[in-house]
């Protein structure tokens, strides 16, 4: 593959992964590469990043694609070939006991010192030695990060690492954290190396399509891992800030109300009766009173949390926000979101309130809606807007459609946010279509969609 082919393939893969790289930016990247020396891979990466990545959240995706198209080394690299101990790769099992022992010893040392270069080399060795999945023909063999990690099991080295760090004079808490971070880094290195080898075997296009994850604001709530959720939580407040800035700006733009004749005529006296400047009445901003009713059962709890956090972070944009959580019973959680409250504490008290929202622990929309209408009849009035969050999966129970119709009829507006892809609506026990007939149902699967929706109703 020529350099140009690699470049074109790289840019194509970035576009496929959701980065909008224009033709002009591709050309910029080439002229940037002409200006730098190529002996260092990080230089090439930085030159590409400066010209192609224009939004920081996309950087993760960019790095993943870059690693596939511009791998750190090819095969086992130069060093291994020089050693010459890989002359017969197929002969006999290579991951025999003594080898594994020796390898784990080397890994423990490298982890203790935290030397990145050695760790990279060990990650490559781990995949080569313990992760090979030989195929029956050329192009059929593969590499598995999972197998390598199972064999090496770096997690078992945590205790030893912690002991070492404690001896260096760190306190217990930090030693634990540092150890965890280093093991996590090594795991990522092994995964990266397996990707690199698969890309070498099957072509980068194959890998880029499969392994590259969408950026954090396009990641489905339901597909998020634990670490993703933490990252999303960090994104909520910046998102709220951006939305608030946008809202104020738009309100300013719409501030000019109808002509104020009296003031205009008065002002015209100063210019000899010619109304040079017109005066307008300020427009009274309309603010919505929001009632959020959210399903916090296991399947959609994350989604509900993010929506609540975002809505409350933007509470200045609404005249009032009340929030209720339900599983099969209803509990009000508005008090949890005090102004200036700490995010982590809010999450804890939200989790605690979930137990109040469950009576039998199985999602029952019909029961929850009925209880809501009974217990909080004053919550919804002609000024308020109702926002229901949930996937509409009600375990085949009674749906209480008339109750919802009544609530929606009393409210000024009503929406239903569904964190599932529309193709899953009305499948299995989902009552999305029945509820959707009463209340307009909106797809809301990631932070970007959530941001757009909240902006639209504020």
């Amino acid at each position, binding site marked *: 593959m020529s350099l140009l082919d690699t470049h074109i393939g790289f840019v194509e893969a970035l576009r496929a992964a959701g980065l909008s790289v224009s033709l002009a930016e591709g050309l910029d990247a080439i002229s940037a590469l002409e200006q730098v020396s190529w002996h260092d891979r990080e230089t090439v990466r930085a030159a590409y990043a400066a010209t192609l990545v224009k939004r*920081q959240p996309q950087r993760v995706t960019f790095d993943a694609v870059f690693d596939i198209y511009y791998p750190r080394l090819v095969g086992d690299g130069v060093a291994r070939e020089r050693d010459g101990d890989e002359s017969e790769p197929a002969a006999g099992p290579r991951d025999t006991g003594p080898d594994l022992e020796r390898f784990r010893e080397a890994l423990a040392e490298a982890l203790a010192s935290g030397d990145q270069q050695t760790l990279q080399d060990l990650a490559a060795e781990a995949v080569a030695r313990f992760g090979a999945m030989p195929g029956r023909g050329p192009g059929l063999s593969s590499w598995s990060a999972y197998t390598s990690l199972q064999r090496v099991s770096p997690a078992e080295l945590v205790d030893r690492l912690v002991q070492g760090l404690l001896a260096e004079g760190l306190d217990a808490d930090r030693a634990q954290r540092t150890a965890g971070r280093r093991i996590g880094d090594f795991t990522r290195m092994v995964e990266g190396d397996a990707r690199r080898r698969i890309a070498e075997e099957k072509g980068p296009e194959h890998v880029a399509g499969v392994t590259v994850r969408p950026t954090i604001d396009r990641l489905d709530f339901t597909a998020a891992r634990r670490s993703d959720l933490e990252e999303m939580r960090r994104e909520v407040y910046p998102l709220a800030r951006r939305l608030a800035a946008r809202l104020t700006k738009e309100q300013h733009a719409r501030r000019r109300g109808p002509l104020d004749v009296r003031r205009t005529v008065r002002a015209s006296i100063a210019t000899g009766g010619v109304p040079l400047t017109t005066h307008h009445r300020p427009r009274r901003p309309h603010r919505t009173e929001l009632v959020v009713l959210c399903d916090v059962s296991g399947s959609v709890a994350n989604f509900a949390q993010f929506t609540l956090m975002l809505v409350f972070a933007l509470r200045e944009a609404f005249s009032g926000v009340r929030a209720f959580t339900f599983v099969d019973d209803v509990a009000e959680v508005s008090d949890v979101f005090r102004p200036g409250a700490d995010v982590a504490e809010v999450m804890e008290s939200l989790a605690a309130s979930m137990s109040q929202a469950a009576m039998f622990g199985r999602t029952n929309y019909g029961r929850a809606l009925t209880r809501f209408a009974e217990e909080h009849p004053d919550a919804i009035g002609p000024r308020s807007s109702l926002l229901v969050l949930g996937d509409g999966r009600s375990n085949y129970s009674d749906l209480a459609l008339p109750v919802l119709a009544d609530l929606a009829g009393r409210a000024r507006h009503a929406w239903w946010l569904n964190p599932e892809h529309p193709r899953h609506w009305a499948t299995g026990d989902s009552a999305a279509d029945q509820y959707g007939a009463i209340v307009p149902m909106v797809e809301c699967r990631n932070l970007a969609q959530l941001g757009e929706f909240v902006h639209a109703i504020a």
Partner: protein
Amino acid sequence: MAAAEPGEGYPRRVTWFASPADAATRLREAGYLTDDATALTAYLAGALEKPLLVEGPAGVGKTELAKAVARATGAELVRLQCYEGLDEARALYEWNYKKQLLRIQASSGRGSGQDSWSETHDDIFTEEFLLTRPLLGAIRREEPTVLLVDEVDKTDIEVEGLLLEVLSDFQVTIPELGTVTATRRPFVVLTSNASRELSEAVKRRCLFLHLDYPDAERERAIVTSQVPGLDDKVAAQLVDVVVRLRELELKKAPSIAESVDWARTLIALQIGDLDEATVARTLGVVLKHASDQRRAVKELKLATA
């Protein structure tokens, strides 16, 4: 892949930096410690003569980068501070109405008819009556110039449109005078806090650099270089606490500027050792939310006096 000599045979009108390494050295001499990516991007911005869009949290040294480039290259810094309601008249140029009016009144006495009208008309739209604002000023300067467009995300969308012509061709069209093209392209730095997404058109024309909090080692170097009197041990302790604070889930993580402030505070209070009680006492310098402070005290297990 053969190592190519960078930029050989390229006609360069202005050389800002000779190489990424040169950029790093000269910026360091100007008192700005960069990492490799920052130095490389600064070099590229100069070599490709493209504007540099710098994004990142508040207080990581975005504006300072532009100032450092100006210091390092001996160029003059022209600054356009953006704000809501900034318009053409304050960003680009404006006709000096009062002076024009005077000119018309002065000429109305002598001469008459068509001649004096066209004469006056030609006369009042000349350089003499033009008030240059930062953007036009930076383009017309003969000497090396660094143009800093600060907090570009605070402006309205219309101003972005105005910037497009300036950023892509380094020229400004004044209907009455014609097009003014830069004789010497300025080094343009735009900074943004990402409070609003900039338009694709602006981003496309720029190189992008995201500045983030530095690693512990570089931060220590920054703090000691900014606050000369600081003890090495205290600097290490301070950076250690700041790094731990950034790991917490806070509303506003402490910035580099704030760790420098903290170091200055410790100097002013003549504190030679940053123990837990001192951290708890002076936490207000780095954390500006009450809930953040409570959280820090809890998570770092600080003993409050």
